[in-house]
């Protein structure tokens, strides 16, 4: 197994706005991570399946449509069921402040809101990933 940090970048839900997902995927690659971009409109099951298949260290979810409180807790639940508790999950997108504590309570490590810099996100992942 390589020492590279393996990251799944996923867009759950129906939203097609992938500028952020693609920018962060590229920033992760430039930082030397192994990046798997799942493509658009992934169900929670598909995201978790990808994390399992790809032996991911990190799952980065991009949600801009407002569906995060339906999709993200379900993804976290499925991750636990699959024993992926050690995978670092981060979210980027349009996430209102009041949803952040709820998302963290179900196991999301960090939420990056509009304006977050790719450097900060990369640094966060390096610091918090639990490399297997």
């Amino acid at each position: 197994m390589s020492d590279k940090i393996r990251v799944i970048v996923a867009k759950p839900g129906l939203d097609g706005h992938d500028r952020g997902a693609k920018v962060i995927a590229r920033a992760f690659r430039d930082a030397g991570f192994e990046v798997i971009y799942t493509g658009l409109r992934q169900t929670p099951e598909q995201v978790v399946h990808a994390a399992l298949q790809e032996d991911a260290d990190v799952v980065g979810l991009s949600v801009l449509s407002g569906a995060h409180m339906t999709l993200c807790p379900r993804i976290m639940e499925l991750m636990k069921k699959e024993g992926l508790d050690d995978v670092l999950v981060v979210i980027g997108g349009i996430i209102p402040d009041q949803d952040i504590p709820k998302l963290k309570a179900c196991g999301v490590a960090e939420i990056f809101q509009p304006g977050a810099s790719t450097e900060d996100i990369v640094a966060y992942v390096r610091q918090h990933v639990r490399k297997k």
Partner: protein
Amino acid sequence: MAKDVKDRAFTTVSGVPIEQLYTPEHIRELDYEKDLGDPGKPPYTRGIYPTMYRGRLWTMRQFSGFGSAADTNERFHYLLNQGQTGLSVAFHLPTLMGYDSDHPMSEGEVGKCGVAIDSLADMETLFKGLPLDKISTSMTTNAPATILWSMYLVVAEKQGVDWKKLRGTIQNDILKEYIAENTYIFPPKPSMKLIVDTFEFGTVQVPQWNTISISGYHIREAGSTALQELAFTLYDGIEYIEWALRKGLNIDDFAPRLSFFFNAHNDLFEEVAKYRAARKIWYKVMTERFHCRNPKSAVMRFHTQTAGCSLTAQQPYNNIVRVAVQALAAVLGGTQSLHTNSLDETLALPTEHAARIALRTQQIIAHETGIANTADPLAGSYFVERLTLDMEKGCWEYFERLDAMGGMVAAIEQGFPQREIQDAAYEYQKAIERKEKIIVGVNDFVMENEPPIDVLLIDESVAGEQIGRLRKVRETRDNGHVRSTLNALREAAAASSLNMMPLILDCVRAYATLGEICDELRSVYGVYEEPTV
């Protein structure tokens, strides 16, 4: 602190280098008649009407939609009462993707990004109390545009309004979905066929309707430069025309109903140059490439929306200022209609309060600043004319590359426009992180502990209620009749040469749902898979 001014590169938002001073030397080749012309005269660089805003102000058209059809109907009435002059519907993602509200993929999305429309019953509620012969309506829908337009036409029918009196626009621009926004359903070939069907149908049946709004807005939001926005949008226009001509349509029948939609980003002069160049290039495309005879075919009419991607979640009140400057660019550029974004749109859909400020911004520009007094006030500026000429030159260069690739559908399949945009988006992000570009409140002039602002929250109960209404429609309609209209639709889709609009209208009249209609079309057309870029 910001870097010292002298250390910064002087470039536009799109990264184009700008000189310290522009003089007559910079526009020596400029020929007034050939390059500009008076407003209302070819090549329309200075605007499409001789009197411009003295004759009529631009249409103030705020894009709006959230929750249920009843919620959005209430917002429409409110905006019209506040002096808005046209409607613009935002649909929620399940509608845009051809799913009913009770589809598993719709979970969590109902009423979130726009209004939930599942069947004609919702469309009737959406336009309740709004006389469709008196207002113009724009509908942002692409893959299922034929279906939502059909719903609107049937609402008009029920109101007793002649289709020939209807004014409005369907976005109906699938190419920019493949390029940038990704709200596609079917593959390019059947998608383009449906669009050509709307051109053909609209010309005869709904002659005042804009059957397409060829859109650069989303291309820019995905991170393109101003030039890429312009070039890809106009080339999309060329592609639609090519497909329509191959079907045997006469250019002068449908070209006058093609409309455009551009972004207004922060760089005032770059944006003005973009709009001015757009009109001129389109005139040349229509007259020199397509040899149109009807002067109206060569006139570019466009809507503008201020750049959502330029707004910041940090210190959101600053967005009012950004929007005002962007709206100014659109008006100085001669737009026909305008949406101004609300200050809270990086956080959620706008509150009524934020939406009102956005509308007031347009009213202040229209009525207080004097900007609307004369046409194309920036003409003759050495700087703006130079930028306009350069914008045009860059655009022709992109056209050559796209022609060589075999047109836009081929270029999309090769991932060309997608890659160009992704590269530009990444460069822009890096420039911000290197502080070569300053975004107030984000990478400079930052405030700690900002107080939160009130945002619009869509209650989860919206979904349950919407699904309840949908089930009631399915229970109370004549399901045998619905089935027969859907079967006829599927057979016609398989036959491929028939115009699909009359068949879709029949399904809609029978209260077939949007998801049911799309399922039939999906079963024949298949679905689009994006190429890896």
